[in-house]
C-alpha cells in the first residue's frame, strides 16, 4: 500500500483550471520528482498538498488513512487544516525565512510554539486531575505537578535545542547559528529553510523549485543537502527544473503538462525513453537550454 495517495486533485482559479485531475502514489522513503514547464500546475499541486490552497475536488490518503476529501472541504475548520498541514513540510523557492530572527530562532520558532501547545494541554490535564482529587490532597498534588511541569518544560527546551543544532550541522551551517537571514547567501538561506522544514519531522517534505531563485554557482550546495536527506525514512516531493538532479535522486518522476500528468515512471523510463510527444519536446527543450 502506498504511503501517499492523491486521487483526482482538481483546482481552478476563476476560469483557469490549473489542476485537471492529478492522481499519483508515493511509497515511504521514496523521492518523487515533478517536472514540467512553468504554468503547468506543479507549484499549485505542491500548494494543494500543503493546504495552502484547498483543492476543489479530490482525496488524499496518507498511511492508508483518508486525510482530506474535497467533498467535505466546507466542513473543515482552520484548526483542522492546520493539523493536516503538519503532515507536510514545504521548502519555498524564495526561502521565506523570518528576517527578524536568527538562523537558530528561525528553526526553533515553530517547534517551540508546538511544544507550548503540548505543554498547555498537559497543564489543563493536570488541573482537571486536581479538581477530581480529594480536597486535602490537592495542595500536595499541585506541588508534584508543578515539579513535573517544570521538568517537561526543561526537557522540551533541551530537545528543541539539540534537534536544531543537529539539523544545522546536517545542512552544514553550525557556525551561522546566530546570523540573521540577510547576512547569508541565497544558498545558505535555502539550507536554513530546509533545516526549518525538517525540524517539524513531517511525513512528507516538499520542495518547490528550491534552486530556481539561486545563482547558478549556489545551486550545488542546496542540491547536495537535499540529496543527503534521502533515506528510507524520508519521503520527498521535489518540483524542479534541474533535470540532472531529478534523474539522479528521484525514484519516480512525474511530468506535468497543462494540469495533467502527461507521463510518469522511473527516471530511466521518463528521461531515457519518454513515450509522450510532449515529454519528448519538453526534455529536448530543457537540454537545449543547457548548451
Amino acid at each position, binding site marked *: 500500500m502506498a504511503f501517499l495517495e492523491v486521487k483526482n486533485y482538481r483546482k481552478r482559479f476563476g476560469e483557469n483550471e490549473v489542476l485537471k485531475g492529478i492522481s499519483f502514489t508515493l511509497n515511504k522513503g521514496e523521492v518523487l520528482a515533478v517536472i514540467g514547464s512553468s504554468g503547468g500546475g506543479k507549484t499549485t499541486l505542491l500548494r494543494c498538498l500543503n493546504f*495552502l490552497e484547498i483543492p476543489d475536488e479530490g482525496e488524499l490518503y496518507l498511511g492508508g488513512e483518508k486525510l482530506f476529501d474535497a467533498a467535505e472541504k466546507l466542513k473543515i475548520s482552520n484548526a483542522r487544516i492546520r493539523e493536516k498541514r503538519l503532515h507536510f513540510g514545504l521548502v519555498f523557492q524564495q526561502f*521565506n525565512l523570518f528576517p527578524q530572527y536568527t538562523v537558530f530562532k528561525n528553526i526553533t520558532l*515553530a517547534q517551540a510554539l508546538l511544544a507550548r501547545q503540548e505543554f498547555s494541554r498537559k497543564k489543563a490535564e493536570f488541573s482537571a486531575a486536581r479538581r477530581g482529587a480529594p480536597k486535602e490532597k490537592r495542595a500536595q498534588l499541585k506541588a508534584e505537578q508543578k515539579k513535573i511541569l517544570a521538568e517537561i518544560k526543561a526537557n522540551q527546551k533541551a530537545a528543541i535545542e539539540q534537534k536544531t543544532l543537529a539539523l544545522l550541522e546536517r545542512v552544514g551551517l553550525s557556525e551561522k547559528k546566530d546570523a540573521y537571514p540577510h547576512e547569508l547567501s541565497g544558498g545558505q538561506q535555502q539550507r536554513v529553510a530546509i533545516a526549518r522544514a525538517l525540524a517539524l519531522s513531517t511525513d512528507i517534505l516538499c520542495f518547490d523549485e528550491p534552486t530556481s531563485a539561486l545563482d547558478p554557482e549556489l545551486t550545488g550546495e542546496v542540491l547536495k543537502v537535499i540529496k543527503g536527506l534521502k533515506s528510507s525514512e524520508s519521503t520527498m516531493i521535489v518540483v524542479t527544473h534541474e533535470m540532472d538532479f531529478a534523474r539522479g535522486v528521484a525514484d519516480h518522476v512525474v511530468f506535468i503538462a497543462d494540469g495533467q500528468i502527461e507521463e510518469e515512471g522511473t527516471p530511466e523510463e521518463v528521461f531515457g525513453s519518454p513515450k509522450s510527444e510532449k515529454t519528448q519536446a519538453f526534455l529536448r527543450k530543457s537540454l537545449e537550454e543547457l548548451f
Partner: protein
Amino acid sequence: MAELLVQLAQGFLVTLELFALTLVLALPLGLLFAFGLMSRFRPVRWVMKVFVWIIRGTPLMLQLFIVCYGPALFGLSAIRNSFLAAVIAFVINYACYFAVIYRGGIESISKGQYEAGQVLGMTGAQIFSRIVLLQVIKRILAPMSNEVITLVKDTSLANTLGGIVEIIAATKEVTGATGMPLIYPLLGAGVFFLAFIGLLTLLFGYLEKRLGYFKV
C-alpha cells in the same frame, strides 16, 4: 520670567497629557480599524472605508465640536468635560490615520511570510504576532513618526473647546496676568514644542536603529 515659565510649563503639561492619552488609545484602536479595512467580510470593510473617509475628510476642529455638542442630536446636553471630548475626537481621528498606515505596512509584507508560518503549523494569530508585526513596525516607523509629531502640535486645537489650557492658551493667560507682550510667551511655547519634538525625533531615530539589525 519665572512666572512665564511656570505657566507655560503647566500648559505644556496639558498638551502632553492630551498627546499621551491620544497616542496610547489610538495606536491599538488604529490597528483594529486597519483589520476592519482589510476584513474579508465586505460590509465591515465598506463601513470602515466610509468611516475613514469621513474622519479624514473633515477638519479635526469640526470633529472636536461635533464630539462636544453631538449629544444634542439625541436631546442631551453637550459634553461638559471638554478634555474628555477632546480626547475622544483626537483618538478617533488619529486612529483612522494610523489605520491607513498600518494597512499599508501589513499589506507590504510578502505573502511568503504568512505561508511560511502556515506550513510550519502556526495559527493566524501566531503568524501575525510572531512574524508579521515586527516587520510591519519597522516598515511604518517613518510615516508613524510624522503622524506622532503632527499630533503633538494638533493638541493645540483642543483649546477651541474652552476650558483646556494647553500651552497656546496658556500664553494668553500669561499676558493677561503680567501685561507682557504676547510675542514672548508665544516664542516660549515654540521652544517647548521644539524641545519635545526634538526628543521624539531622537526616540524614533533610536527605534529605527534598534530595528536596524534585520532587513525586510
